[in-house]
């Protein structure tokens, strides 16, 4: 299984789909992420809708406090988009500070979620509803954490001047991923926190 001499790889021109391959790959990956969340949402729907199981011991789900947190995360989507806009306007500092603002907002969100975990009054071991509450929000929390790491790396690349108006698929990917995490949270917040007790 030898190979012949090194030849310059003639780049094969892709079919024009309007999407860069890496962005298309990311979107397909997000479809599979959606399915992963879907598995947990299916379990949750079975519990809350079919079996009408409520929060353990009549606990009050902190919808008001978490709605503020939701606003924080939604706002971070806008700052993330600001970073991209700044790139298009060739505003290098804007890219960095847009990402930084997103990072800070994301960290606040994650911190408030951890605080909620510690004060909510039930644990993952409290029945199936406790298990699904912590695993749904926890699964999302891990995604936020991964997003924060990506944002941090995006900032490192911004400082080193690696994002250009012409080549920035990575930054675009980070922002799409961040929006995805945000949208999943809005859905999660609606069905977990706002669904009235039966």
């Amino acid at each position, binding site marked *: *299984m030898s190979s012949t001499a090194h030849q310059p790889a*003639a*780049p094969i021109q892709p*079919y024009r789909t309007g999407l860069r391959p890496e962005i298309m*790959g990311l979107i397909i990956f997000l479809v599979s992420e959606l399915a992963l969340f879907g598995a947990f949402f299916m379990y949750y729907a079975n519990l809350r809708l079919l079996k009408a199981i409520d929060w353990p011991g009549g606990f009050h789900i902190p919808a008001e406090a978490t709605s503020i947190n939701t606003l924080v995360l939604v706002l971070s989507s806008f700052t993330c988009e600001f970073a991209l806009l700044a790139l298009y306007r060739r505003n290098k500092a804007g890219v960095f500070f847009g990402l930084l603002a997103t990072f800070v907002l994301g960290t606040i969100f994650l911190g408030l979620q951890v605080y909620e975990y510690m004060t909510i009054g039930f644990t993952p071991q409290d029945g199936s509803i406790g*298990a699904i509450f912590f695993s749904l929000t926890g699964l999302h929390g891990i995604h936020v954490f991964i997003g924060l790491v990506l944002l941090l790396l995006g900032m490192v*690349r911004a400082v080193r001047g*690696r994002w250009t108006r012409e080549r920035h698929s990575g930054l675009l990917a980070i922002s799409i991923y961040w929006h995805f995490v945000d949208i999943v949270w809005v859905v999660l917040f609606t069905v977990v926190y706002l669904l009235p007790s039966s």
Partner: protein
Amino acid sequence: MTAVLKPTLARCLWVAPAFAAIAILITVAARALVGMDPVLQESTLLTVAYIAGGIGFVVGIGGFDYWWTWMTGGELDPNDHSTHGAKSWRDYFKFNTDHKVIGIQYVVFTFIMFLVGGMFAMVFRSELARPAAQSLSPEQYNGLLSQHGVIMIFVFLVPVFAGIGNYVIPLMIGAADMAFPRLNALSFWLLPVAAFTLLTSFMFGSFDAGWTGYPTLSQQSGYGMTLYQLGVQLAGASSIATAVNFLVTIITMRAPGMTLFRMPLLVWANLATSALVVAATPFIAGAMFMAMFDREMGTHFFTIGGGGDTLVYQHIFWFYSHPAVYIMILPGFGIISEVIATHSRKPIFGYRAVAFSSAGIAILGFAVWAHHMFASGMQPWLRVPIMISTLLIAIPTGIKIFSWLGTLWGGVVRLTTANLFAVGFIFTFVIGGLSGVMVAVVPFDVSITNSYFIVAHFHYVLFGGSIMTVYAGFYHWYPKVTGRMYNELLGRWHFWITFVALNVTFFPMHYLGLLGMPRRVMDYDPQFAWMNTLISIAAFVLGASTLIFVYNMIHSARHGKLAGANPWAGLTLEWMLSSPPPTFNFPTTPRVIGGPYRYGEEGARHAIIPEAEPASVEKVGA
């Protein structure tokens, strides 16, 4: 000395344990910091160590080197192809981004796993040869049985098709490589981690709840059960990454002129399979996560006492695992279409119908999961719709079989070993398909559920189906991969022994099942004794037949006669290249000018590779 710092297996030896140790430290420290008992259970720490160690292995082999440099804004040379292509056998043990190298890595590794899984079957078949317990304890028996299923499905059948696709598909569509070569290598190197996780579960009390791992039974198993749940997730992550790669490759990297309906059918099959993998695999990850949390964190997803619901596990599990059946057979269908058209010198009969039937199977595959649960006590109203959808899925499958028969009919059939396996596949797969229609019918299924009839059915579709197509594919592309011909005589011996032994092994199981012999039990009624002895003997012959294959493949790679570029006179793009193909495949971008199966037409061509000219091709890709 530098070997331990460069991306090699030697580096894995210290990076993986280091990652595991750091992860344990972080877990203990974090728990101590918030005032919880630092060690909840030892097994939880072991799980953490396995996860981090697995990531460490992939880091050690070099899976993240490039990305790390890229993400931290370091200097990268876009023309650095040092990890691309193999110059000696050592390169096959390294992180390599060439799809041809990865394809070989996949196929060899998964085939070794096939032999391991087969060995487990040999062991418990020797136990089953006589009634009552002889050599194995019930725990060992259950463990071997479960390992056999899991190894065969998750580290052989699912990834072996990714391996064949990896080698062949970029060649077939006229691309230089896959869309994401590094992701491709990463998804291969996750597989050894998955296999290691599954196989080392023997050390901690192996999982013994069957390959499905249903709770509540799985909650009573030893720690190996957690490793099963972890191993399945690792293998699943690997197959999702490959599927994303295949989809993007097939959508964006086809050579000019290769419209959707000029794609070879294997490409179609992989497109449908990859879509299935992307949409379905996360569900098994979800089920495994929940079951794992139950075991390792004391949650109550599926424990009855804690308000859990065991049936939901089965729903989520089969929502992946039924599409997984098609993940394990659709690429095989593609291979059979290639082999039969090429070796019968005829255009595929009903090309578009076959292409659409792949898509049809992929879509319908999501609507049939609950037929695994007819006897589980699920909602009764779900039974009849699922029965109907299950019967419907026989139609696109029937279309394919009709197409293969129509292609063979009146063709100049050359019974090479590849084609023998393809024709033999049609025979055995139809048996498996027909028993599949039988078990889809609710009353029949309820009466034979959990019996050997089911074992007979899925071994006919997985061995008589998938594995026959894998062999057909191996023999068909062997000259392309190695540049040498396999030994045709040994190939025929391999086929006939496999074919006869396979039928003698699995056909009597139908009868045993109808008589009521339950599956997954090591003891059985003495009246079944002679038939089980026969099955065991045939199973050993079946196991031995793989040795002929292994010998043939290894010996012919060195001593076979040279194959030349196109020993089968195939028309698809891979046969227009030398055997084995050059590192970057095509010297210039090929132009596709016609359908892929224009056999029998005078001077028909599928594609042309233009003479090299001063390229002024626009630079693409980041």
